[in-house]
């Protein structure tokens, strides 16, 4: 499976879906339009700074709050290749996998990696490398069926390419 490589944007605990994509923009469901307002209420200049492939690193409970899939959609459409966190809120976790946005739980990496670091993530092994610091971390590798969903770029494509709904094997 593919890997991610990019520059890190770093945030703290409890980054909620309201700051990831404020509800005042939820009258749209267009990914490109949502991306324009990604992280607007926590990091106003984010969309001007972010480059394709960049990585978000945060600490506890990333994506807490609403079930809006617009949050991972906005992050993905902004060009972010992976989100690393100590923990994710559970609906965000499901949504990210379902739309094919790679996310990795790793408390050590979430604590140590700093804004601006160059980081690589190997999704097969869950290994996170901070190229800037020369350190590596073992993130949680996905169960096989989640890897398949991410490889298919989301649940819909996955369902279309498999006989059953979700192969939990």
């Amino acid at each position: 499976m593919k890997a991610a490589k990019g520059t890190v944007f770093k945030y703290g605990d409890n980054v909620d879906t309201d700051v990831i994509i404020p509800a005042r923009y939820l009258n749209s469901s267009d990914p490109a339009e949502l991306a324009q307002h990604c992280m607007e209420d926590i990091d106003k200049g984010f969309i001007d700074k972010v480059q394709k492939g960049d990585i978000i690193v945060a600490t506890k409970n990333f994506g807490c709050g609403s079930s809006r899939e617009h949050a991972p959609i906005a992050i993905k459409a902004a060009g972010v290749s992976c989100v690393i966190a100590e923990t994710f809120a559970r609906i965000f976790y499901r949504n990210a996998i379902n739309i094919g946005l790679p996310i990795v739980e790793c408390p050590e990496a979430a604590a140590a990696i700093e804004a601006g670091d160059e980081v690589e993530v190997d999704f097969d092994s869950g290994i996170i490398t901070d190229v800037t610091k020369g350190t590596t971390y073992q993130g949680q590798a996905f169960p096989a069926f989640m890897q398949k969903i991410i490889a298919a770029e989301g649940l819909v494509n996955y369902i279309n390419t498999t006989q059953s709904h979700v192969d939990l094997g």
Partner: protein
Amino acid sequence: MGMTMTQKILAAHAGLEQVEAGQLIEADLDLVLGNDITSPVAIKEMEKMKVDGVFDKDKIALVPDHFVPNKDIKSAEHCKCVREFARKNEITNYFEVGQMGIEHALLPEQGLTVAGDVIIGADSHTCTYGALGAFSTGVGSTDMAAGMATGKAWFKVPSAIRFNLTGKPSEWVSGKDVILHIIGMIGVDGALYKSMEFTGDGIANLTMDDRFTIANMAIEAGGKNGIFPVDELAAAYMREHSTREYKIYEADADAVYDEEYTIDLSALRPTVAFPHLPENTKTIDEIKDDIAVDQVVIGSCTNGRLDDLRIAAKVLKGRHVAQGMRCIVIPATQAIYLQAMEEGLLKTFIEAGAIVSTPTCGPCLGGYMGILAEGERCVSTTNRNFVGRMGHVNSEIYLASPAVAAASAVTGKISCPCQLP
């Protein structure tokens, strides 16, 4: 090994004798829910799937409630998309303006959610139906799409935290204070990925509306679901509202819990969550400074039910909202609205200088109907006080019960009814 109440419901819906925490299962769904924000995304996703229509037109509920009556052209287009999908797929439980209410107040009232169900909804407060002994949880739009197409969803079986409730709440303490107290105690990720199972003889002292409020905010502690045992009160509610048969599941005596807490309801005090997290709680006695307030909102899927309006009216009766205060009351459904009218509650609100709106989620998520300007403060009976949630990024939300919200409307600062002259 014994199973929790949640695990038993999930096992039954996965066709398994036994499940354990961490196990991945695929479960049959009794209901799939979406609103006007999440459904359009789900409908778009479903159109990409190679399926012929929905799995069961009677087991899908579509409730435009967030930005209706349409707040702008884009919202109108979203609602139109949902309406056309409902018509094309002959969705039985599509609720147009005039029939709609805030989804999590509406569906139990319509009898669509009963004990023993497995329900997913593309709205985080779908966990509300745990008050009736159902497993219900919030998901995103793609899960909703897959659920509508296949009638199934995958779950990681959750472990649980048990909250043993004892005693009887004192006057002006309600379900909102119970759940704010719990979130203050365990934090906004205190129940992350887990079930919150409520037990104990104190439950008998909580009304159904109290229980809906408590289960509703399980997500604010990170919980996958919140669930109550089915007692006579819950059974009577379901008999009154539903023609569906319900099924009672009870936790095994040897069920394993990650943590257990005992909460004496009689010791709880009116509780307020300060900006910008629901875990930043203080009891009314701990608030020493005057906190001036610009707006009060009484409503939402958390606190827009009849009990809530009755409490607010009891506080506002014969009183008037403070000079310069905006007090917005939003009954959660048409039936609640009508009953509030018949009981004279709406008259009380209007005479007190509050306004009463048609059902909508509007202000709770900063949609419309009560957006905050820079520097403004709101005491709200809603469920989240995140940065910018209700408007300007430099506005503040204080979460509280209907009693505290109504009293604060009168004094213009955060207050308890017990402090009113």
